[in-house]
């Protein structure tokens, strides 16, 4: 061991350097956000959380009950029951999502040919009862009004409803 190393060892140079760094950080502004008491966290658009069923501007539900979303869902958490309505039209009688089983992969959004289902950025929906997490058609439509709406919905489909034909332009 050279004298230099010995002096370094005795004087705890490397430890002091580390302490100086932490001391410097002590005076720099904190990066911690005091969620949920002081700040609300606003996820970016397109964040994948609670589902909603989209509506047209007229308020009519977009979903036609084709069942593609439940076919692609890897956890099989979407159940759709359809009946025959007036003029032999298909009517979506019940549409339920068991969000406790959902893995938020957004494959249902990708599969839906009509853009009828979306994942909203609303993530705070804790509850005391298992039943609260079983989202029925009415609650899902209500989610659209609360967390999406026409304005944000349009933006969502423009940016996150994939794939678009321009993604294929030119070929690979």
């Amino acid at each position, binding site marked *: 061991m050279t004298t230099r190393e010995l002096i370094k060892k005795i004087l705890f140079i490397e430890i002091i350097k*580390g302490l100086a760094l932490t001391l410097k950080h002590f005076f720099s502004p904190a990066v911690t956000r005091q969620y949920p008491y002081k700040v609300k966290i606003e996820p970016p658009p397109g964040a994948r959380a609670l589902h909603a069923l989209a509506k047209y501007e007229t308020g009519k539900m977009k979903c036609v009950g084709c069942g593609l979303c439940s076919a692609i869902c890897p956890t099989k958490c979407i159940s759709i029951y359809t009946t025959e309505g007036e003029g032999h039209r298909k009517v979506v009688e019940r549409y339920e999502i068991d969000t406790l089983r959902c893995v938020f992969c*957004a*494959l249902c959004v990708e599969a839906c040919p009509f*853009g009828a289902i979306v994942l909203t950025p609303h993530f705070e929906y804790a509850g005391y009862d298992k039943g609260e997490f079983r989202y029925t058609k009415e609650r899902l439509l209500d989610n659209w009004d609360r967390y999406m709406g026409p304005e944000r919905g349009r933006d969502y489909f423009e940016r996150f409803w994939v794939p678009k034909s321009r993604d294929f332009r030119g070929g690979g």
Partner: protein
Amino acid sequence: MAMEKTRLGDNSRVTTRELTLNMGPQHPATHGVLRLVLELDGETIVKCTPYVGYLHRGVEKHTEQLNYLQIIPHTDRLDYISSMANNIGYCVAVERLFGIKVPERAQYIRTIVAEVTRILSHLLWLGTHALDIGAMTVFLYCFREREKLQQLLERLCGARLTVSYTRIGGVKKDVDQQWLEDLYAFTEEFPMRIEQYETLIDKNRIWLKRTKGIGVITAEEAINMGLSGPVIRGSGVPYDVRKFMPYCVYDKVKWEVPTGKNGDIYDRYRVRMEEFRQSNSIIRQCIEQIPDGPIMADAPKFVLPPKDAVLTNMEQLIHHFVLITKGPMTAPEGEIYVATEVPKGELGFYIVSDGTGRPYRLRIRPPSFVHISALPRLCEGGLVADVIANIGSIDIVMGECDR
């Protein structure tokens, strides 16, 4: 098991017994549900037996019931810290099997997000490894940087951890210019952060005592055990799948494979610290070079058709229905093994296709599983306290090991 033996000469009445100690599966420092049965002679480990399988979910079997697209969310949950890299590994394997050519831009995006994931995974490793050994501050600093990258990922694909970002034939969503600029700004600041971590622990005498010369594994042994990733590179073997069998655009950017010499915990730590810098430089080069163009391959048999075409074109609509409900029905028969370099080592996907929309068999070769088999070799003969350091240094994730 508790063998009695006399240590202090024949006349002594003091006898010691070997003690069997159960460590885990619920132990904060085993990084998941790993259970080790240790046989101790005093503080020295005589025998170490790892037990795995507490997190077994049957992913491999389950994937036989799912079509190729539905498997992507499952790959997220293997090594949940670097889900992006798993997505890419799986998609590259399926694309080679199907013979799909992925467009240039998608390849660049994949490389960028794979390296972002490498930084994320190594940051988590550094933080928790230092925490295990006794350095608290590093953990907090690492999580500060992690948060920035996680927010970038969230902006990109809507999720922080289980991203499901790549698709067979490309990626789910294009990156925008603002995103690239923000990431570039991060890479400008990051080297300074790496130096800060190094100031804290690189020469710290406690850190050196706990890591130098501990858990040594020679290059020969490492090769024989099939280790990969930073663990084998720490022993001086420059094996990196990205260099040996390049995928994405790793052959178009300049980077080096950092290696260690002694194969101890400290060298593995140094290798990962250098990988931070290499990944950082790969990201920068990719952002500088990224070309314009499509992000999805033009392979109508395997890729979901464009949304606007589905509603106007009958043929595309039928195609869409078949791909979603049954999977790619024209998948070629055959089998393939494709390895990619994830942050923890070599992740391989072995896929057997029988021509239906689902894989006949999908086998995953996780690096963590192989690395756990090296634990007895690393721990035996050492002290109990070093077990924790050893587990940290091979960087395992049980979600991937048990599948």
